[in-house]
C-alpha cells in the first residue's frame, strides 16, 4: 500500500458539506468580473476599479 500512488476518494457525503462554499466563490468571481452595481450597490465603482483586470482576464466589458 503506497499512499502516493493510490489516493483514496473522499466520500460524497463529506464533499457535500462544502457545497455552500461554491456560491460564495462564484459571487466573488461575479463581483470581480461582471457586476455593474446591480449586486454590489456601489454603482460603477467596482466596475471601474476592476476595469483593467476584466479586459485582460478576457471577460466582456462595456
Amino acid at each position, binding site marked *: 500500500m*503506497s*499512499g*502516493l*500512488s*493510490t*489516493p*483514496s*476518494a*473522499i466520500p*460524497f457525503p*463529506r*464533499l457535500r*458539506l*462544502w*457545497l455552500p*462554499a*461554491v456560491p460564495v*466563490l*462564484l459571487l*466573488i*468571481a461575479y*463581483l*470581480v*468580473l*461582471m457586476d*455593474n452595481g446591480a449586486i454590489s450597490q456601489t*454603482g*460603477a*465603482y467596482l466596475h*471601474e*476599479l*476592476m*476595469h*483593467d*483586470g*476584466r*479586459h*485582460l*482576464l*478576457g*471577460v*466582456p*466589458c*462595456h
Partner: protein
Amino acid sequence: MVRTLLVRGLLVGLLAGLIAGGFAFAFGEPRVDSAIALEEAHAAQEAPGHDHGEEELVGRPGQKAGLFLATGLYGVAAGGVFALVYAGLRGRVGPRSPGGLALAAAGTAFAAVILVPFVKYPANPPAVGDPDTINSRTVLYVVMILVGLAATAIAVATARRVTAGPWARWVAAVAAFLVPVIAAWALLPTVDEVPAGFPATLLWQFRLASLGTQLVFWTAFGVLFGWVSDRAARQAAAVPATAAAPS
C-alpha cells in the same frame, strides 16, 4: 481533508492571481493605455471644443492597482472552486498522483473555461465593444463557458466507457469534447464590435496579452497546487510509515 484542499486552493489561487497580474501589468497594460488613448482621441474628434473632463471614478493609476486586486480575487475564487472539484475527482477520475491530477485538471480548466470561450468571443481592449450590448455579450460568454464545462463532462464520461486501450480512449475523449464545442462555435451568434479603423496590430497584441494572462494564471496555479499536493502526500505517506514501524 476537504478543508485542507480548499485552503490550499484559495492561497495558491491568490498567489497565481498575483503572478498573472504581474504578467498583465507588464504585457497588457501598455495595450490598454494605447486603446484608451485612441478612444480619447476619437472622442475629441467627434466633439471638438468639448473638453473631455468627465469625472473619473477611478483614475488610470487606480485602475492599474485594481488590476492586481481583480486578478488576485479572481485567483481566490477560481482556486477555491478548483480545489473543491479536485477533492471530488481525486481517487475517482484522472491521474493517480496528486501533482499529475492537479496539472491535468488545471490544463483542462484552461481549455474548457478560457480557450473555448476565447475562440468564439475573444477579449477586447477598451474602445472596442458597444456598452448597449454588454448584457447579451456577457450571457453569450457565460453560455460558452458552460458549453466548455459540459463538453468536458461528456468527454470524461465517454473516455471511461472506452475499453479498447489508451489511444482509442484519447481519440474518443477529444472527439466527444470537440463535437459540442465546434457546434456551439458554429451556431452561437457572432459578436464583432471592432470599430472601423481600429489598429489590427493593437487588437492582436491585446488579445495575445489577455490569453497570456490566463495561461500564466492556470500554469502557475496547476504547478503550485500540484507541487504542494505532492509534498503533502509524501509527508502523509512518511508519517504513518515511521509511526507504524515500532508496532
